[in-house]
């Protein structure tokens, strides 16, 4: 029951404060169930932060926000040892990363060393500081927001960091009708209190178990590896999809299958998620870009999907 309804319930709850972002909510939920992290990219004022807050609230999970700035230090996010005057010992003070859902706001405004501080946490769900290893709560998800790279004062995320994000979800400007609705809603004060928790802890564990039990046939795995090879052999790409990317593509496809009420993955799942999972990981060849023969990564991914025959 909960498995079928969860997407609709969450969309409805988040939709109380964020208008016209159903597909984005669906992708964030898919990413969460696949135990991945998501990068939301868009110009300021497109409700990225609000959506992240509302999303964590309706899941009833602990949530912290870290605003990334150029003068930020790794200990501001991870935590560090502080001398306790009473006990006369150094004690580890946990940073905002010790939460279920971390909103890393404007992640690309922080220096690369701060961005890199998240690497271990995102991959191994733990942090290590001076020999101390702290386990992060489960589930753990980073919802990072970033402004487009041509904005002032932003540092591009390194490839290794980008690869840790299961998906990049783009937030474009809303349509005319949606924008009018947003303005109308904002005439009165928007209150996150209206967003209610719709999933219990038990439901969440059931959902995670359901994702783990989704069947992925050998043919689907072969199809995914063919897609990976195609991205790596394309002359217009200097960095193709990594094995981690393909693992995450399959994981997200499993989560999507659960949300669609299935216990098996279809090529449709893979194709529908290939763009948000792969686009941010491939790097265009500089000479091909300069010659103008390389379209955007999204177009290349679509061309790859068009060429590789799925199992039918």
């Amino acid at each position, binding site marked *: 029951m909960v498995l079928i309804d969860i997407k609709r319930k969450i969309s409805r709850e988040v939709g109380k404060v964020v208008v016209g972002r159903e597909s984005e909510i669906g992708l964030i939920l898919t990413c969460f169930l696949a135990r991945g992290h998501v990068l939301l990219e868009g110009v300021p004022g497109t409700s990225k932060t609000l959506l992240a807050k509302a999303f964590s609230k309706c899941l009833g999970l602990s949530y912290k926000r870290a605003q990334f700035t150029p003068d930020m230090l790794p200990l501001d996010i991870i935590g560090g040892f502080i001398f306790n005057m009473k006990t006369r010992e150094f004690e580890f003070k946990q940073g905002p990363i010790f939460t279920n859902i971390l909103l890393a706001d404007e992640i690309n405004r922080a220096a690369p060393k701060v961005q890199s501080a998240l690497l271990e946490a995102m991959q191994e769900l733990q942090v290590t500081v001076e020999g101390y290893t702290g386990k992060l709560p489960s589930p753990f998800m980073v919802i990072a927001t970033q402004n487009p790279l041509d904005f002032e004062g932003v540092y591009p995320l390194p490839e290794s960091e980008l690869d840790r994000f299961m998906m990049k979800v783009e937030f474009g400007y809303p349509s005319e009708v949606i924008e009018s609705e947003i303005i109308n809603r904002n005439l009165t004060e928007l209150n996150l209190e209206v967003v209610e928790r719709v999933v219990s802890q038990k439901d969440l564990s059931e959902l995670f178990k359901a994702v783990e039990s989704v*069947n992925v*046939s050998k*043919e*689907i795995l072969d199809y995914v590896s063919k897609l990976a090879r195609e991205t790596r052999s394309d002359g217009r790409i200097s960095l193709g999809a990594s094995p981690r990317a393909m693992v995450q593509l399959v994981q997200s496809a499993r989560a999507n299958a659960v949300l669609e009420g*299935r*216990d*098996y*993955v*279809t*090529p*449709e799942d893979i*194709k529908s998620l290939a763009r948000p999972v792969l686009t941010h990981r491939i790097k265009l060849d500089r000479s091909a870009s300069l010659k103008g023969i390389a379209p955007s990564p999204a177009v290349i991914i679509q061309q790859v*999907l*068009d*060429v*590789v*025959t*799925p*199992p*039918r």
Partner: protein
Amino acid sequence: MAQFDNQYVLAGLLVTNIVIYLIFVLGLRRATSNPLLKVSSLDQAFEALEKSLKGAFPDLPSGFTWGEGIERAKKLTIRIDWTELEKELRTYEAYRYGKWELSPSSLTRFREVVKLAALLPNKRRKKIWGVIPWS
């Protein structure tokens, strides 16, 4: 004069007979050679649909999925029970990708798939004197 007329009538009847017989034989051969009549399993039904989709939409990329192919077919005015077709597709996917063991009745549930495969126009069929035969 009467004998002359009878000869012509006889010859005419004979020719007509031969033409009717030929039409009948050719029709029968064409009908029995139609691969859609030989479909007896889910796999064969979807194999036939794949061929028909490729024939109907030559611009369909080789990486198309069932969903995308059927979405294109829906835009044509074909009288198909699309809900039933979706169910048949779902059954096939469960069997194909989920490795589900299907009941014998489910394994023979492909009527709408075969119907769609038969009704899709074939744009790859060769033209004879500028006309696509049987279209």
